[in-house]
């Protein structure tokens, strides 16, 4: 079998797809997939890759692989995959869970994405999410696509309230002792995400040097601006120091070291 950027690469050989309306009750089966993780912890990777070079993107994947070495919980992100014009992989933050799973196969990789356009089948029945050749990420164990009924498109933040509720339910009902977020780069949606997790007092980790909204928030902290995130649950780590993030994850119960 020839492996391409569209080849499904996870333990089961298939990605489970779930579709939920953003106003409906939470999707039980999607949420239950998370309980198959050996360790009941969950981290969301939020952000983007704008202004990043190809080399920057590869270094991003390496940063997370080193930081999450030994992780066996749930690792979530957006659920999309971007392809280049020639069909090659254009790595994004949404590739982080699947990439980390390559060396930590027991973790559960989950994604969510809003329906921002009409879905279509193209070419050899490729499932395309929008007009930019965006695909469901084939490295996830399960993906939740969130829509506002069949006829209305959501914005790119359309899945955020749903995934926050899902993480809250894991924490409240399923015994996930620790849930948190790592922010890398990103724009306005990412800012809303780390503000939301910080407001919940969840561990909220900002990666310094990753760019844009994440770095802006770190600058606000360092310059004592009135709107700066603050509290013991806010943690800043430099993008060149994955071992510092790994230590934080161990110290805060996300990674268990025997």
């Amino acid at each position: 079998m020839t492996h391409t950027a569209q080849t499904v690469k996870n333990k089961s050989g298939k990605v489970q797809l779930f579709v939920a309306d953003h106003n409906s009750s939470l999707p039980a089966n999607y949420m239950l997939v998370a309980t198959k993780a050996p360790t009941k912890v969950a981290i969301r990777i939020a952000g983007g890759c704008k202004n990043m070079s190809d080399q920057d993107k590869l270094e991003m994947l390496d940063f997370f692989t080193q930081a999450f070495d030994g992780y066996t919980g749930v690792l979530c992100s957006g659920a999309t995959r971007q392809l280049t014009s020639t069909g090659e992989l254009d790595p994004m933050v949404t590739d982080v869970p699947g990439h980390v799973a390559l060396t930590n196969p027991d973790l559960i990789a989950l994604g969510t994405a809003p329906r921002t356009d009409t879905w279509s089948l193209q070419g050899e029945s490729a499932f395309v999410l929008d007009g930019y050749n965006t695909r469901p990420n084939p490295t996830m164990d399960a993906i939740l696509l969130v829509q506002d009924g069949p006829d209305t498109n959501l914005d790119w933040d359309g899945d955020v309230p749903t995934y926050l509720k899902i993480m809250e339910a894991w924490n409240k009902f399923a015994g996930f002792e620790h849930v948190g977020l790592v922010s890398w780069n990103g724009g306005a949606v990412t800012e809303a995400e780390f503000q939301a997790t910080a407001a919940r007092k969840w561990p909220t980790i900002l990666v310094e040097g990753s760019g844009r909204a994440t770095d802006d928030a770190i600058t606000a902290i360092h310059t004592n601006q009135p709107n700066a995130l603050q509290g013991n649950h806010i943690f800043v780590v430099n993008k060149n120091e994955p071992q510092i993030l790994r230590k934080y994850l161990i110290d805060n119960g996300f990674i268990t070291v025997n």
Partner: protein
Amino acid sequence: MFDSPVVPRSFFMNVGENSANIALSLTKAKEQVVVRITGGCGYMSEEDANGLYDLYSEAFSGFKGAMMFGGTRMVSKNDRNIVLPGITEVVPRIKKENPDCIVFGVVPRTDDVKMDTQYGFIVTDDNNPWITIPHPDQDFFVLLQKSVDQSATWTDEWQECYNVTKRLRNVCDWKSLLIAYNGGGITEQEILALSKEGWPVLLVNGGGRKTDEYASNEEFLTKYPNVKVCNKDVRSFRNALIEMSILPGFKKSLNLQVINGGKF
């Protein structure tokens, strides 16, 4: 009346709804197995009841999975410390001796629910001199109704347990077991439904009524090899639980064989 200082978390649900939170709550069990206890006791004596409680408690010693049951307790209208013996007392006793297991009650709202300063919720009070309340010694329960204006039935109770079991089996790869003891027509529905589904069923023989009828029905047992029978004694019951992989850690070390047509 309250053995535990923590009162159970309560959910309210219409028949046909899906609850993520209920399914997630069951996954807090340390072992990925869900056991549904069904059947009845039909006005048994206190002595018989104690024998039944001991049977289940000893058979399930060491259990760390999830359990589903009717979720109610019947107490005297005059003295809430007087409890009517019944099969819904079995599961809370197992929980008491095996605190790692998770216990979930499914309570159909078959009448108007009332609030009482002494008892909290009263599920029914038309069964003189007894009233039915949600059992206080369970981790959580759901009060099930068809709608605000429509009560649920006892059939809805087992069907909700079936739905939860299906979800845990299909999505999370959990093991499951239906255990039937005694019981009438509703218990019969549940035995038949799960037998046809091919899921593990254990009939505890010797308690009477529908369960005993099927436990001695050779044609039925041959048709559904997923249905096993044990006797109403601890050794037979516990052996069946081990053989059916409901209790942890024993099956691989014992060279167990299916003998006597699947009867334990």
